């Protein structure tokens, strides 16, 4: 099975089993490098796919929570090589397939050829790069050629022809930003979201997951049937910051 199919299959399986798949995001290196493997394993035990966040010094699409986790992780030395080493050590022991989520610059510094080569041994099945729109996706050619998932991101302000070109180039799943805004914000009304997700789903041949601002079970339940999966990030990282268990929160959201 190709890496990107491991992701789309895991989403489909989660949806078929639970009504909606659960994608968890955890910042690598937060709250410490030592605590991270335990948190990642816990997330993998309760989610269908897990995004490993690569911290960046200038996270322009992130709200306060992920800015803070990113800063702390960088202070703890969560560089790409250190994160890949950590993931290599855990390879085979995790219950869910992994994606890397990070801004373009740290990935470029690591080298996309190098990432394409190293992905398999680290259990990495693809990437989500918020500052890489479809016009510039060619930059990620080594990732695409390695059959890794390149998650496409769409937003409520994405118009029809762009939507088409994004879903056509995406693999793994399509990440539908459910509200306009930085991560952690939640403010669109439900009717708008349902109609928007319907539009994305009709266009997309691969699963659609909704993210940004999903914090409680009511948010997840409201999206059942409207999309294939939900992505939970800021709420999970707030839980970690407060010393609460990621597994408990994910169980609650199921």
């Amino acid at each position, binding site marked *: 099975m190709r890496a990107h199919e491991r992701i789309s299959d895991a989403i489909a399986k989660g949806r078929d089993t639970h009504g909606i798949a659960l994608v968890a995001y955890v910042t690598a290196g937060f709250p410490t490098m030592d605590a991270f493997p335990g948190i990642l394993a816990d997330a993998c035990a309760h989610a269908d796919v897990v995004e490993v966040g690569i911290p*960046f*010094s*200038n*996270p*322009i*699409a*992130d*709200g306060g929570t992920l*800015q803070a986790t990113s800063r702390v992780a*960088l202070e703890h030395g969560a*560089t*790409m*090589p250190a994160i890949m080493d950590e993931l290599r050590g855990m390879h085979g022991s995790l219950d869910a397939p992994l994606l890397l989520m990070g*801004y*373009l*610059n*740290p*990935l*470029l*510094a*690591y080298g996309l050829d190098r990432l394409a080569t190293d992905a398999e041994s680290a259990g990495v099945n693809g990437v989500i790069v*918020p*500052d*890489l*729109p479809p*016009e*510039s996706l060619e930059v990620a050619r080594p990732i695409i050629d390695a059959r890794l998932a390149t998650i496409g*991101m*769409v*937003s409520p*302000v*994405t*118009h029809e022809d*762009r939507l088409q070109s*994004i879903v056509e180039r995406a693999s793994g799943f399509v990440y539908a*930003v459910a509200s*306009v*805004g*930085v991560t952690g*914000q939640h403010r669109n009304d439900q009717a708008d979201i349902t109609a928007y997700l319907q539009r994305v789903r009709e266009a997309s041949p691969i699963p659609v997951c909704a993210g940004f601002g999903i914090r409680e079970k009511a948010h997840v339940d409201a999206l059942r049937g409207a999309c294939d999966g939900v992505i939970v990030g800021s709420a999970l990282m707030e839980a970690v910051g407060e010393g609460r268990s990621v597994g408990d929160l994910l169980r609650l959201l199921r």
Partner: protein
Amino acid sequence: MTTTSTDLLQALIEGALPDSNGFFGPFGGRFVPETLVPALERFEAGAREALADPMFHTELRQHQEGWVGRPTPLAFAPRLSAAWNAQVWLKREDLAHTGAHKINNALGQALIARRIGAERVVAETGAGQHGVATAAACARVGLPCIVYMGSKDVERQAPNVVRMRRMGAEVRPVTTGDATLRAAVDEAIRHWVGYPEGTHYILGSAVGPHPFPWIVREFQKVIGVESRRQMLEKAHRLPDVAVACVGGGSNAVGFYHGFLADASVELHGAEAGGVGAHVGQHAATMSGGTPGVLHGSRSMLLQDEHGQVSDTQSVSAGLDYPAIGPEHALLAHVGRVAYHAVRDDEAITALDELSRLEGILPAVEPSHALALAKHLVRDRPGATVLVNVCGRGDKDMPILTRLADEHAQSEGSA
């Protein structure tokens, strides 16, 4: 495909760059979250339509003449010339309304923002000059304005904060990140990601995602076009050397554009050398940087081996930025412009020299260009040098007062 340096420079001179994807050769582009792409496309379409409309240019010219005070003078500096043993000419952008070249771009973008139906404007500012210019331009065209400013800069440039608020702008201090220009850009972009529909972001430098580096250059080109014409009128010749300061590089890119095709004119850029050459001690992107992606474009960037953006330091809030506009990265790449690091102390010495010899108190930013110009003509007696004095120094009173106090203290303890 144009790949050689000569071809790329020729394409730039002919107006073929940036290309349709916003690239200046290997630099530039549009690396932003999807939420911003429709807003950038709308702005680009509006800007292209405006720049092709003679009525827009008529309106812009009226504001430039009656409100900005264009053309700004270009004048010979007699006492500085004698001191440097050179022919020194100054382009007086410090005499533009609100005290710096920033008004050229703020006015142009505010007019486009109104044209495309924006309900509010958001901007970032470092030295406060772009914030003041944007506040003024928004007052002029009747748009609400929010300015993000690093809390360190709010302190360093306090008078400008008062000016912005007096003109009706809301100033939001940014305490995240490094609390300077970089953090202010982060925060302004985040605001825009939150409200992409009704907001226009007036980016103040020739950085950021396409179409900003292009549109900012188009509105700053007036500096270079005027300078070239005025040199021929007044000096009856072009300069041997033309110098500007470069942070993100908006004054410089506009200034250079007047002379790109004149092979006899050497072009130089002065970057913020801060207090030393080590990481974190300066903001000299060309001297210490490598290619990378920040704030939506690929350019030269001060970063560590893992792609994390480095901290910067400079006496000048306006140059205190870890990246540089993509067109500058190209100009360096093709060898048309030479960029040099100028230390804080060298800039302050140059600031004093211009103040005392010519009665012109420049901002600390163009003081870097003055220091570089002096250095460049040292071995060339009689050379004709043109310096773009892109802003006046009134905003720098807090930092100049602090430096004077520190100097007095060290004298006292010695």
